[in-house]
């Protein structure tokens, strides 16, 4: 099963490789990983999507907690949470298909952030499934480039 694990860690050089190194050394799977500093500049927030059964996820959480730079680890999937992902996608647009594509973008509340000759760059945010669905709704031959951030998320409770 897919789990979203949210980590607060010291914003220090090498902290990212400690986490990614742990996953590769112990054979844990990483589906996506995002990281950026938080409002506290000394802390980074990392969100990892991993696939594994309960025992593996438990080990992942325990092993992450063991890393000296890690301050907190939360399995978001185990609690009420909000998850979002952002995608930038370049789409080939011909006059004959433009109306159809515009409609798709509207349906998915996408934003056209750049228009150049025969090309849209579209921003879509939402649950990963929504992004998958949007891509699936397009003619594959029209998709020029895809860049997704991977999932980030927060717990819905005020504190955890």
């Amino acid at each position: 099963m897919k789990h979203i694990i949210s980590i607060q860690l010291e914003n220090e050089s090498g902290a990212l490789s400690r986490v990614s190194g742990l996953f590769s050394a112990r054979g844990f799977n990483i589906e996506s990983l995002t990281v950026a500093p938080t409002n506290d500049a000394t802390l980074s927030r990392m969100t990892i999507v991993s696939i594994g059964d309960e025992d593996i996820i438990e080990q992942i959480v325990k092993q992450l907690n063991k890393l000296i730079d890690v301050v907190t680890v939360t399995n978001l999937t185990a609690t009420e949470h909000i998850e979002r992902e952002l995608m930038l996608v370049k789409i080939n647009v011909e006059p004959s298909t433009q109306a159809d594509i515009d409609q798709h973008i509207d349906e998915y509340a996408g934003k056209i952030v750049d228009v150049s000759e025969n090309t849209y760059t579209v921003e879509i945010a939402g649950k990963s499934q929504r992004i998958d669905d949007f891509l699936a709704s397009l003619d594959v031959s029209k998709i020029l480039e895809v860049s997704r951030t991977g999932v980030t998320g927060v717990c819905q409770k005020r504190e955890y």
Partner: protein
Amino acid sequence: MKLNGAQILVKCLQSEGVEYIFGYPGGAVLHIYDALDACKEINHVLVRHEQGAVHAADGYARVSGKCGVALVTSGPGLTNAVTGIATAHMDSIPMVVISGQVSSAVIGNDAFQEVDSVGITRSCVKHNFLVTDIGDLATVIKKAFHIATTGRPGPVLIDISKDTTIDDIEFGGYPKTINMRSYQPEIKIESSQIDKAIALIIQAKKPIIYSGGGSVIGNADVELIALTRDTGFPITQTLMGLGAYPATDKQSLGMLGMHGTYEANMAMHDADCIIAVGARFDDRITGNLDLFCPYAKIIHIDIDPSSVGKTVGVDVAIIGQVTDALNALSTGLKGKKLADISAWWRQINEWRAVDSMAYQTKAGVIKPQSVIEALYEVTKGEAIVTSDVGQHQMWAAQYYPFDKPRRWINSGGLGTMGFGLPAAMGAKLAEPNSDVACVTGEGSIQMMLQELSTMLQYDTPVKIINLNNGYLGMVRQWQEFFYDKRYSMSYMDALPDFVKLAESYGHIGIKVEKEADLMPALKEAFAQKDRTVFLDILTDPTENVFPMIPSGAGHHEMLLAGRDEMASTNDKGLNLV
């Protein structure tokens, strides 16, 4: 007063109370060596290879309980140290390794003797640091010692760029305390878990205590003995745990696992309640996980939550210091009536009567087991025994019953050949008044032979018990059992004359070829209090380590010497190694 980084480092090490540094100089650490030269309080031991430095610091730490310290230069100095660091990491040994690094201006430029030390060691340290700013140095050193010695201990690397050692700064003193929000090693035992454990313990009709390295590292011998005596339960100890509970006591069933005793493994298999104390259910203990302890409720005490439930599911997890947990159990059990376990002891005594440690003697050959028994006799069971890795390691663990902790020093987790000799040197420095024996084989000893030279220079007399059977014995044993006796590369042809070799290093060498010479040679060796003596003992080249759970089998499927000469395994076992 302004001090340079090297001087600050040395001041900080002094403040930590460091007695010994094991190290080897080189370009990136020349400033540090210059500062060390001016320091009279810290003794530096110049090894002959950086791996030896780390193993010596490790042996020192295991015997003394203090933090070991090693110092190496950048590049090859660090890469040579990696095996030692990984060895300490697998066995949770408190250690700080200081490595030089090229100047920060050229880091990343493939400079001379540059490697990414922090990257290379990341997966085999508890934590590591790269220091490129002298302002961070003292705090980092404080953190390093704090991390290395608290919680589940482990090695910490401090990589210091050369310019950091040259720069100077007004030194504000070594921090007295350190608080890290991301590292809180103090864990309070949860009383609800203790209650659950006690409920299981008082019902248990077939209980067993299974104690591991955590009881030694966590200095829990007194508490372990108290709980074991109070409950009257049988106890078995892992290779890493030997000595925390006295092996000669009647409640001790000896070691468990692949080469453990019949009674220990059978008792584990049939137990209805297992109290695991600072042990981590590793594959050498469990054998085939599908067949492991099928009837038992498991209580697991460990300082490291990630050890719990990693390979074996447990019923009650008690996370915290082993001493705290054992005390809490002992207190909770006061006044409680335990179930009658006399039938269990009768069963155990039947298993004991099998006498699984018996071995057959053969006229004209020296049995390796008898060497260890003679060593035990000559040292009255009081020596510190280090070992290398292989058959001799198992025989030492099986035939030298340790009654005290920190007397049995071996690389249990990583299984590092070459560990024994430098570890013996570190052990002797930690306890100069104890006899130190290094039980080794002609394969292992040749991996760290060069440290014989260091041992002469620093006057660390140890007795090297070389069980020389001309084979990489454990490899040969597995090839005999599992590879149809195809002895691929397990024969060590062209061995040196170890007697002459020892003599050329300034030590005493004695060759023992006949059984009748064994005892006199051992006595002679230990009578030479001030000398390192290399006993090259020619032992039976065909002897195998028994009893044995063939890899892939369960605890109840043990093979015994003289009764099951040939072991077999299955695909699963071969995969387990």
